[in-house]
């Protein structure tokens, strides 16, 4: 048993783990993560796809073997830090008594402690991470899952410079707590997240969308924001009073004609009882009539906000700073006279 503990706390074991982790990271970075089985088969062939999936290389950084390697590294760090603590203390006291600058002797120990905190912060953060998304166009109100708060997108704008390059994406929101009726306004842009209900809200994505409004005899009966070529929930408009009909937002195309500016074409497919009945193409806004219902499609730009709550990110950050401090101490604050752990042992 003693031999096992000694091995688990040894530097030989640490170096082996580091080399294995480096090799695992390097190899996993060569394989695109999170694809479907079919996608791997198309890229690497059937048998290779089977091997990749069996070895969990498709999600390498969350695989059992990667977590096990990281776990063993943590165990090694804990054991070697605990076992070596008396040695560091003894050496520090001796150097201090001799009047030497001894703080640097703690460098390696502090560095290992920092790495341990960093890995712990990252692992705990991954385990307890709460993440959700909120998307829509100005005027939309969505419930932010996990918090129960309602987010109304007041405005979304793409700020541009004189040369037409994008300077910033900005989403203005109103956060409403349905329980208390309390509202709060916030602005989210790239590099400037907002804090909402304990979550950080990040400006993540944008793209084309369409607002579909159904009217009957001039009165609005239905309204939905559609995203192109997404899931049923996001790109299909089912007519509430005519369940046999559904519109699918099939995407956009850029039309380029010589001597003219690019124009964007919006494509919508009308399905009746699940069978494609007709396709519609509009430059900008367009309408379709089905009986007394008029469906108007208006081009819009959607904004996607990602909400994340990682309560252990500060721990990882503290770990990083401690690691850095440990390295600086170990490299530049060593006493003049050096001695190694092995030499004393």
């Amino acid at each position: 048993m003693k031999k096992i503990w000694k091995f688990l706390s040894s530097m030989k074991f640490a170096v082996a783990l580091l080399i294995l982790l480096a090799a695992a990271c390097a190899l996993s970075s060569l394989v695109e993560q999170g694809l479907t089985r079919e996608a791997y088969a198309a890229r690497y062939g059937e048998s290779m796809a089977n091997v990749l999936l069996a070895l969990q290389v498709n999600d390498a950084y969350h695989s059992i073997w990667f977590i096990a390697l990281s776990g063993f590294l943590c165990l090694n760090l804990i054991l070697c830090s605990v076992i070596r603590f008396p040695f560091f203390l003894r050496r520090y006291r001796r150097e201090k008594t001799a009047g030497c600058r001894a703080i640097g002797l703690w460098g390696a120990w502090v560095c290992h402690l920092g790495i341990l905190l960093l890995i712990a912060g990252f692992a705990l953060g991954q385990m307890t991470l709460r993440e959700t998304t909120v998307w829509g166009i100005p005027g939309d109100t969505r419930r932010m899952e996990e918090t129960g708060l309602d987010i109304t997108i007041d405005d979304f704008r793409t700020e541009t410079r004189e040369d037409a390059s994008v300077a910033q994406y900005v989403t203005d929101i109103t956060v409403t707590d349905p329980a208390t009726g309390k509202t709060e306004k916030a602005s989210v842009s790239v590099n400037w997240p907002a804090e909402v209900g304990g979550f950080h809200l990040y400006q993540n994505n944008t793209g084309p969308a369409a607002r579909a409004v159904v009217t009957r005899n001039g009165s609005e009966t239905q309204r939905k924001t559609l995203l192109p070529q997404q899931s049923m929930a996001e790109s299909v408009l089912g007519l509430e009073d005519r369940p046999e009909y559904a519109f699918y937002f099939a995407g956009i195309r850029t039309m380029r004609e010589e001597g003219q500016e690019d124009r964007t074409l919006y494509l919508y497919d009308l399905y009746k009882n699940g069978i494609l009945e007709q396709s519609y193409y509009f430059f900008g806004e367009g309408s379709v009539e089905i009986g007394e219902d008029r469906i108007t499609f208006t081009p819009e730009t959607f904004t996607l906000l990602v909400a994340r709550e990682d309560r252990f990110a500060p721990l990882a950050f503290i770990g990083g700073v401690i690691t850095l401090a440990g390295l600086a101490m170990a490299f530049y604050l060593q006493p003049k006279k050096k001695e190694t752990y092995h030499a004393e042992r």
Partner: protein
Amino acid sequence: MQNAENILFTVSMAGYFAAMALYFLFIAMKKEKTAKIAGWVQTDALLLHTAALVLRGIEAGRLPMTNQYEFATCFAWALCLVSLIFMRKYRFNVLGAFAMPVVFLMMGYAAMQSRDIKPLMPALQSGWLAFHVSTAIIAYGAFGVSAALGAIFLMRGRMKEEGFLARHIPDADRVDQIAYRSVCLGFLFLTITIITGAIWAERAWGSYWSWDPKETWSLVTWIIYAVYLHLRLRRGWKGKAAAVFAVIGFICVIFTYIGVNTFLPGIHSYA
């Protein structure tokens, strides 16, 4: 102003080439004066290069560190600066013959990239950019010097002790020690690079670590040098093995910088 920057860049690149040639001549002709001239040429080229970077920074209205061209030229600048500091500090002119080819190659790589000054995309508009990229440049420069020293160490082993070159290269232990110091500097700055990058990524992308290929390869590089330091400090691993390791580490650095952008696209596509 871009014309002036282009001229300064080209002249400094020619200067680096001349310095490299002079260092080679110093080794071939065994004349100490040649090394002295090479040192002056290198210093002058570095000053011109600095002026080119300053001009670009003024014209762009930001630090010139945001695309492949700018990073490559800054990388060459840092490698040249760090090698010059080490050469002066340790009176070690032969280092120039090993560092300058890498500086020149990096300038050549920069010259092949687009030099257009483009406005920053929203994700790059952050105060963390300066910290993250400048520390990466210093780290890469220091690792470049350690690799050059590793190569010198390996070459020194095949030299006669009494020869001209042997007189101009510190003894093996000293070369080994300088290479170690260079790795320490690079490792410290690479750690700062990774930490500042994580803080910035958290603000820009919402996650401080996403296993993006650039992040992953930075970690791989960090681990490789961590292994080097462990083996060296705890196992007394010095000499040839350490020199080989320093060269391998730098190959990994180059892959992280150029290889990842070429073969493994990710969210770091601009760097």
